[in-house]
């Protein structure tokens, strides 16, 4: 579904991604883990071109999206993104946050977009907060709304950039539950996270990143039980 070839990214002299070649298959749940500064987030952000790759190509369902002539907006519609800091629009109500893109980008009618938004909002248990503003919600609620906002565009892939890292510990569960449900429904997901439990339970494949490369990848069971590289072993020893 997403094919990454020879991806490199440098900020000035600072090389963050050295050479990444990877393929993400439809319906697959890929969990990206690794120490901070290893390039996990940059890799994820390159996938929907929030960061412009320095070199390499990214192909989405046969279209080279790194080609400057390709329409990034079209491509981003099919790829939902959830941020560490939620990035809800604070000047709009929850409902408006959810319907803005569907009405403006997909050209949906207002009531049609609202019906869809309310249905999804109900599924994460926040239907009663539709008229609130983001600042009136807790962190966990904000992140659930942010997931729904991405889902309202009916994406084919969901990208999660450390979705639980900015949350109070007691709110992590409610967000992970939503993500697990999403995984069960068959969504293709790429998740950067520090939640090892989630990686084990939901992931089809774990990518261990270190120093701008994918150092090791395996099924979660294999990776957590028998890490191959020394770096992965010491990383797991610290986090588990």
């Amino acid at each position, binding site marked *: 579904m997403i094919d990454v070839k020879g991806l490199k990214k440098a900020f000035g002299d600072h090389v963050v991604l050295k050479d990444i070649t990877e393929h993400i298959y439809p319906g697959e749940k890929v969990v990206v883990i690794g120490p901070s500064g290893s390039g996990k987030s940059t890799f994820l952000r390159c996938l929907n071109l*929030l960061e412009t790759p320095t070199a390499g190509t990214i192909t989405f369902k046969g279209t080279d999206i790194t080609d400057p002539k390709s329409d990034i907006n079209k491509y981003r519609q099919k790829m939902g993104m959830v941020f560490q800091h939620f*990035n*809800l*629009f604070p*000047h709009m109500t929850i409902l408006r946050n959810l319907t803005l893109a569907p009405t403006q*980008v997909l050209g949906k009618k207002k009531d049609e977009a609202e019906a869809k938004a309310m249905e999804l909002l109900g599924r994460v248990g926040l239907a009663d907060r539709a008229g609130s503003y983001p600042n009136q919600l807790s962190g966990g609620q904000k992140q659930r709304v942010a997931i729904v906002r991405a889902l309202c565009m009916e994406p084919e892939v969901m990208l999660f950039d450390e979705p639980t890292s900015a949350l109070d510990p007691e709110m992590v569960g409610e967000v992970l539950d939503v993500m697990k449900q999403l995984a069960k429904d068959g969504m293709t997901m790429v998740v950067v996270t520090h939640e090892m439990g989630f990686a084990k339970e939901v992931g089809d494949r774990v990518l261990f990143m270190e120093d701008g490369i994918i150092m090791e990848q395996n099924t979660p069971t294999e990776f957590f039980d028998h890490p191959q590289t020394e770096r992965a072993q010491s990383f797991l020893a610290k986090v588990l």
Partner: protein
Amino acid sequence: MNVDLLYETLSQIPLEDLNFWQSLFTKFYRAWFLEDRWLKYFEGLLTTIEVTVIALIIGVVLGVLVAMARVAHDQRRPGTHNPVLSAVNFVCKIYVTVIRGTPMMVQLMIMGFVIFASSRNFTLVGALGLGINSGAYVSEIIRGGLMSLDPGQSEAGRSLGLSYIQTMRFIVIPQAFKAILPSLGNEFIVLLKDTSLISVIAGKEIVYAARSIGAKTYEYMFPYVITAIMYLIMVMAFSYLQSILERRLRESDRR
């Protein structure tokens, strides 16, 4: 007792022989009532408002265009190069540098006595000069507002498939507007008061009226105090309107 009659009586006596209150009254009467001079202030006030509105429109339009061009240039996709945008950005930078780097009054005198030396419409030339000046400051205020917003906001917009323009329109600009409203209000107050400077190129606003009345009566205290009060009332009224707007925009901050 009728004020006209009182003035009639007092004006027979030489000014030195009047007591403090009588002389104060005589001076005020000359600065305000005599020959319907109060009309002059209000004519001047009307011109002041007219100039402010014209300059405001020019300033905001210029400011928005310049800010948009500069932000679009600064935030373009890395690696892409747009020669038109670069050229526009360069012109905008020169404009802001020159306007901010020279005194307002010098700019007005260059406008009035050099560029439009042959024009008799001093008021409009003044308004144009003020508008061009204000545009540079407004553009910097707007640019500051656009740049200060968390980049995550536009990233979220773009990640949903909204275009750059749509992201600006629905997400960045509404939030930036709220953030810059106090500085924008401040700039408008400065603009309103700076209209007094067009009197140096013979724009017939309040200060011009006050000065000509003073020249006739040889007494400047009341004309200038009256002028000051008129500005103060206008600025206070404007500040009040601004605070209402700010309160309405704060709705989403409720917790």
